[in-house]
């Protein structure tokens, strides 16, 4: 309050000057409002779009997975003085269990930034019902742990997500292909005579056709039998707190465990590339719109300083210090930025709502309050900074000259 009291006259003069020249103030306010509306709208839209794309992508996959390193040929080093010519054909990658995975799981559980850890045994199989056959991916899981990675239960369209004993959950496309509904039986063939007859307890639809036509969730032990991995798991899925830190965490975990760790960022390189160029474009638009707003404020205040020359002279003659005159114009810049961006935030919010109502309707865009507030904060700061040059000019006026200015 003391601070406000100290600037009491500055506020009074700044507001009086702004209200005195209503048209000028209104025009620049509209300019600032349009600028901030564009920034708010485009930021909300792009952020919303990206969040949506990422959520869709990561809704059905782990942020990162830990696997055994690929099998590689070991080449005997050539004896000294000899040159070895090696013709190498890459090894076939058979399913292998992660060595000592229980200890690994517990280690990963204790890692910072890791939210969920879920070991699974996954591999190919054939599903049969009558004469119909489909190739499937077996997903042997610990349901409690796995649900924290991909909440399958959320996407159920029929039955329950229960995989105890001989129960399985299958995707909607697979159910359609094999004509299965809840309670029906199907035969899973892991090859080499390993077969199990299972019962469909639930049908899910993750929204990704590839997954809905291939995934079969079943109990970890059943999967181990079918895949011939007694007591083993093929990979450990993880989710992390900060999704964009996934690659960094993957590298750290790879070094820590000696295993191969792959993040969603590595598996979705193209998507990530698209997202980051989009972010960069948005950033450019924001910077240029912000710059034009700043120059708008600066030019209006520069004109205002000239218009107010005589009044500045009067104030100085009556004993107003240079710094007070300067603060009056800095305040005007800040007030223009604040009021213009508040209006712009409202318009931007309205634009987003219009987009939600009339747009393609693929997803709903939120306008976070924080976005509007930070846009207002930045606009206010921009206003103050833009006012620095005009305000310094006003403060430097020689009162004896300024007062005779006509």
């Amino acid at each position: 309050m003391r601070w406000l009291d100290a600037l009491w006259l500055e506020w009074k003069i700044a507001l009086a000057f702004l209200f005195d020249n209503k048209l000028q103030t209104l025009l620049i306010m509209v300019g600032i409002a349009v600028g901030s509306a564009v920034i708010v709208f485009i930021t909300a839209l792009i952020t919303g779009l990206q969040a949506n794309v990422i959520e869709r992508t990561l809704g059905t996959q782990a942020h990162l997975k830990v696997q055994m390193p690929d099998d590689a040929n070991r080449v005997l080093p050539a004896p000294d003085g000899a040159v070895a010519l090696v013709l190498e054909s890459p090894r076939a990658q058979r399913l292998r269990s992660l060595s000592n995975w229980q200890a690994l799981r517990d280690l990963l559980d204790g890692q910072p930034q890791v939210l969920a850890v879920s070991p699974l045994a996954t591999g190919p199989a054939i599903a049969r019902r009558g004469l119909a056959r489909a190739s499937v991916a077996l997903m042997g899981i610990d349901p409690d742990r796995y649900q924290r990675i991909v909440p399958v239960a959320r996407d159920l369209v029929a039955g329950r997500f229960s995989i105890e004993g001989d129960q399985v959950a299958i995707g909607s496309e697979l159910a359609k292909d094999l004509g299965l509904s809840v309670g029906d039986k199907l035969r899973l063939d892991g090859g080499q005579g390993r077969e199990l007859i299972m019962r469909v307890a639930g049908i899910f639809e993750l929204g990704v056709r590839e997954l809905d036509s291939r995934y079969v969730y079943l109990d970890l032990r059943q999967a181990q039998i079918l895949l011939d991995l007694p007591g083993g798991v093929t990979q450990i899925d993880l989710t992390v707190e900060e999704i964009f830190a996934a690659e960094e965490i993957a590298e750290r975990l790879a070094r820590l465990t000696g295993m191969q760790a792959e993040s969603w960022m590595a598996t979705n390189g193209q998507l990530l590339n698209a997202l980051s160029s989009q972010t960069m474009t948005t950033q450019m638009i924001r910077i240029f719109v912000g710059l034009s707003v700043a120059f708008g404020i600066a030019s209006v205040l520069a004109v205002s300083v000239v218009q107010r020359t005589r009044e500045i002279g009067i104030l100085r003659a009556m004993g107003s210090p240079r710094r007070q005159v300067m603060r009056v114009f800095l305040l005007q810049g800040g007030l223009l930025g604040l009021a213009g961006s508040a209006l712009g935030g409202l318009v931007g919010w309205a634009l987003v709502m219009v987009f939600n109502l009339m747009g393609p309707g693929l997803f709903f865009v939120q306008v976070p309050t924080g976005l509007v507030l930070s846009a207002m904060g930045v606009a206010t700061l921009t206003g103050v900074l833009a006012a620095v040059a005009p305000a310094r000019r006003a403060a430097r006026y020689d009162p004896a000259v300024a007062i005779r200015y006509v």
Partner: protein
Amino acid sequence: MSDTQEVLRLEGLRKVYNPGTPQELEVLHGLDMRLARGELTALIGPSGSGKSTLLNVIGLLDSPSAGELYLLGQPTRTLDDEARTRLRNEAIGFVFQFHHLISAFSVLDNVLMPLMIRHGKPEPADVQLAEQLLAQVGLEGFAGKRAGQLSGGQQQRVAIARALVTRPALLLADEPTGNLDTRTAEQVFELFREINREFGCAVLVVTHDPRLSASCRRSIELVDGRIVRDTGVA
């Protein structure tokens, strides 16, 4: 005249514009002058004689090139801008030819401006004083009006009330009636005499109006930057 009565003293005051350049121009050539409390003094002289420059220097709007200016016994030449500005607010009231109100403000706010500059939000006593001064200059009931809505004579009277609100020791007026018709000018000038009597401040009026200067007890004539005549010294 005792020193406590002295408001202003000039000693060898010189003002040179553009010193050290081919455009060098000496406007005031070593002036000596004293003004005492309660003196009503006219500063006269032809155009270009340096009256306005002298008034700017005395009003601390401009600084002298040489010599010294004592305001209320305090030497001012070495003061920095901040200190001069503060002293201007405390000790000096200005009335200009073109009344110079701030049109964005009400009459009352214009009168209160020097006090608001000094300590921000006006106290009830400040407002009371401003209203009293407005009544004294014949503008009772005008407090809420916008400054731009007043006639020239009324604006000049507001400017006088504003100059007095800090109860300055020195009131400076630059052609205060130059922009007014004869009758209004007479009223405004009568006001100066009244204020001088009542407030006891030193009043220095730059004027071209012979009737105005004739009605001052003292008049100083400036020609080519030199005091050529000083009559009626207290």
